[in-house]
């Protein structure tokens, strides 16, 4: 089984988010980066499928500036076999169609049996790239996947529906599957894995080499701090004062004590 995994590097959840001067993105100083949450689950699922089927290859692919190589290296240290980096000068790409096109042109010749991606990226939250890529490579697709079972020519996946419902769907391979957070418990890299990763290959491709000049379908004009609408009553003070006020509110305003 030859498996490709898309892992995106995104600002980690507790990074300070300051707007950059251009108003189009965040300033990256003081930002720490991490692998997108659902992508980390996708990578783990790929590694497990490889272990289960006992053969094949897991290839991690990432699009972004030079810094994303660290994310790829993390994937390699967890057990992925090699990496592909589509090098982009911008810190972000905001058109999912373009992102998927760049991946399609890069990965087409790999002829993966399976491509796993995260359900959505934690920065832009577009939730499209896995399905778009699957379409572009004529693969079957499924999203919101919470369990997988692989066989020779098909993959059976448990899809999450709304409100706590699920459904099993069987897809023909090759397939592009978007993984939902919580599907497994991602491993940590072992020391041996970290050492071994240094020797693994990361192939770098300039974005221009795989850009077929197609139009950008949507443009991110600016990012900004949202306007606050609701007036929340903020309770201030030291912990003891806050607690006393909360008790008062529980008694008088909310009447649960």
């Amino acid at each position: 089984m030859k498996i490709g995994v898309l892992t995106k590097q995104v600002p980690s959840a507790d990074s300070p988010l300051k707007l950059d001067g251009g108003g189009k993105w965040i300033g990256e100083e003081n930002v720490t980066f991490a692998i997108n949450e659902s992508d980390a689950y996708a990578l783990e699922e790929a590694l497990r499928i490889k272990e289960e089927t006992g053969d094949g290859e897991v290839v991690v692919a990432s699009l972004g500036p030079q810094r994303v190589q660290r994310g790829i290296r993390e994937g390699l240290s967890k057990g992925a076999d090699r990496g592909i980096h589509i090098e982009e000068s911008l810190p972000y790409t905001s058109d999912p169609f373009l992102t998927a096109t760049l991946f399609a042109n890069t990965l087409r010749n790999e002829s993966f049996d399976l491509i796993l991606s995260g359900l959505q990226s934690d920065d832009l939250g577009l939730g499209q790239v896995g399905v778009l890529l699957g379409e572009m490579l004529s693969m079957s697709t499924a999203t919101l996947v919470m369990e997988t079972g692989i066989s020779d020519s098909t993959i059976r996946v448990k899809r999450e529906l709304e409100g706590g419902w699920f459904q099993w769907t069987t897809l023909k391979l090759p397939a592009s599957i978007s993984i939902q957070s919580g599907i497994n418990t991602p491993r940590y890299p072992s020391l041996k894995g970290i050492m071994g990763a240094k020797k693994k290959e990361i192939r770098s491709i300039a974005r221009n080499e795989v850009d077929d000049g197609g139009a950008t379908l949507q443009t991110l004009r600016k990012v900004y701090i949202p306007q606050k609408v609701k007036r929340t009553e903020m309770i201030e003070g030291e912990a003891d004062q806050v607690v006393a006020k909360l008790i008062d509110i529980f008694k008088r305003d909310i009447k649960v004590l």
Partner: protein
Amino acid sequence: MDILVVLEHKNGTMHRASMEAIAAGQSLARDLGQTVSVLAMGEDTSQMAQEASAKDVMEVLTAEHPLLKDYSADGYAKVLTQVIEAESPKYVIMGHTYMVRDFLPKVSAALRKPLLGDNIAYRIEDGSIIFTKQVFAGKLSADVVPNGDPPYLVTFQSAAFQEDAAAEGNGAAVRPVEVNLESGHISTTSEEPFQETTTTVDLASADVIVSVGRGIGKEENLSMIKALAEALGGQIASSRPVVDAGWLPPYHQVGSSGQTVAPTLYLALGISGAIQHVVGMKGSKNVVVINKDSDAPLFEIADFGVVGDILEIIPKLTEAVKAA
């Protein structure tokens, strides 16, 4: 055709996001001076079509086929693509539901037209349209514009438009459209939907809910939450990452993929306020939020808010509740 709102249903009943999408379509139609039509897809769309034709829309299209009886991404994408090609709408509008996430990018790929997803608003500036969505887990907003010629595929986040804002009309005409679908078009087979866990915790009828998020840091700290919930006589709930980590069983999860709750008090501890969580608890009568980040989006819907460290506050609060 100008604006086409595409409906979604479960066993024939319209999804509430579809009614919100009709309201969005009507609003857009007013602002752009355009007309709005709706499309119902399925094996038998009569119930949905009837409901939609009571709304203030120009026309109700129905796309019926036996292969649309059960949802498949391939089937729905194929049929919607055909309808868009035949009718040439400028905007195609849907709610940002799980089903739409699953199949609408396929339509975008087939038509090579943009899918602008999960918007919370739109506005018109100098005659062109700008959509707004949340980015960075709701901490920032982004303005996004479509490029090139229509159609543009657009989805709106839950509650971006109000269901009851969908204006009534006087009986729009229903027009069946032609559908070409063969079983060979559908590369998947699906089994019956099911629910995983029988809910042993009745969050829906709880009066007090103490809800915990990733801010709790580690599993050991959950005992703190249990003590507080016990002191308050309330139930424990959580955001998704707490369940994903295996710290609480799934039936504690509140949100779009978990339970919907409406207690008298929803005490949210270390929860940031992602929309998928908020949809499950925004009906709560009183929301009290404790979070160390003053910019956490959940403060937006809080009645009372504390910027502080839950690990410090919870034990003290538990003692004070016991003493009260």
